[in-house]
């Protein structure tokens, strides 16, 4: 096979699955958290772009399950199960959860980045999915791209360059 592969895009509050040689990417993560779920022995991976920690914060009926950590992670685990990947084999890499603006107020709404990270970790723990690598917090936006072949998560920032975790 001599295919270059495409890039599968994941929007805000969105999720998707990619199969090698394709890669999967989400752009401009700020306070949102990008969660990659994968199995070492498979080249099928899932990515969720989590915007809010908890769907009970939503004041309307949940339409978009990918938006929340507590609904997005279980939904992705299910989707990967359909693809033949068993939940106990899953591993995670996560990035995002920055605080884009420095306010003097410490109101909860302003701390949305750290709260998203906490919620993501809590739900990964519920499924006993180990976090293999993370790049969270700080105050930089991130674009992340996961390669299902190498299992590397490429993280690009404006001010701190590029790195792989």
């Amino acid at each position, binding site marked *: 096979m001599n295919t270059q592969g495409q890039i599968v895009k994941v929007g805000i509050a969105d999720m998707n699955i990619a199969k090698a040689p394709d890669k999967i990417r989400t752009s*401009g993560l700020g306070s949102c958290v990008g969660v990659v779920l994968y199995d070492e022995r498979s080249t099928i991976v899932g990515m969720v772009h989590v915007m809010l920690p908890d769907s009970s914060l939503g004041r309307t009926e949940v339409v978009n399950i990918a938006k929340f950590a507590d609904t997005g992670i279980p939904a992705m685990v299910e989707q990967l199960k359909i693809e033949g990947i068993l939940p106990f084999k899953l591993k995670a890499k996560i990035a995002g959860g920055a605080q*884009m603006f420095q*306010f003097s107020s410490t109101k909860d709404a302003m701390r949305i980045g750290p709260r998203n990270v906490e919620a993501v970790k809590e739900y990964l723990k519920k499924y006993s999915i180990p976090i293999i690598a993370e790049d969270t917090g700080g105050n930089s936006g991130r674009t992340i791209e996961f390669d299902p072949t190498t299992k590397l998560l490429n993280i690009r920032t404006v001010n701190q360059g590029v790195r792989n975790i």
Partner: protein
Amino acid sequence: MYDNKITSVHLDVLKEIGNIGAAHAATALSTLLNKKIDMKVPKVEMVSFDEMMDLAGGPERVVAGIYLRIEGDVTGSMFFVLPVEQANRFIRRLIQDESFDFQTGEVSEIGVSAMQELGNILSGSYLSALSDFTSLKIYPTVPALSVDMVGAIISFGLVELSHVSDYVIVIDTAINEKDVRNVESVKGHFFLLPDPESFEAIFKALGVS
């Protein structure tokens, strides 16, 4: 409120708000920089979060973004977004330092402070015009500055709204900088994102229901 009852009259009212607000802000900017600033006809659109990023040039576009929350009779978020190259030029002009650059490691404090003040003045003129026009009480928070990817910056302002919706009504006014030698299409944007429950107040204040 959000999805079903918005008519073309409502959209016109929102456009007028963008018009009045941004006109005052553009005048303030023009005075500050002693430069001609053109303003586009405001657009009022209901867009998905991803489309919102595209309005500002795509999620990875590097911008200088000023963000503030609005409290009072109307609540919401406001952004003033400038492509970083344009922000650099504005600030160089303001602080008379040709070497200033937001994209170097050590950004000079005076430049950052000037950008914050620019945001302060522009958002202040936008919102006070809006307040005068509608007789609504509007209290802006102190503007915060971030130079980063537009997706990362704007998604923060969508957090509040994302609790109730996957769409956002955005009042978008673009500004152009006219230069005799190189005609530019680079644009800055004012984005006003009223919280869903605030539309009622805006329409009521202007006699539209």
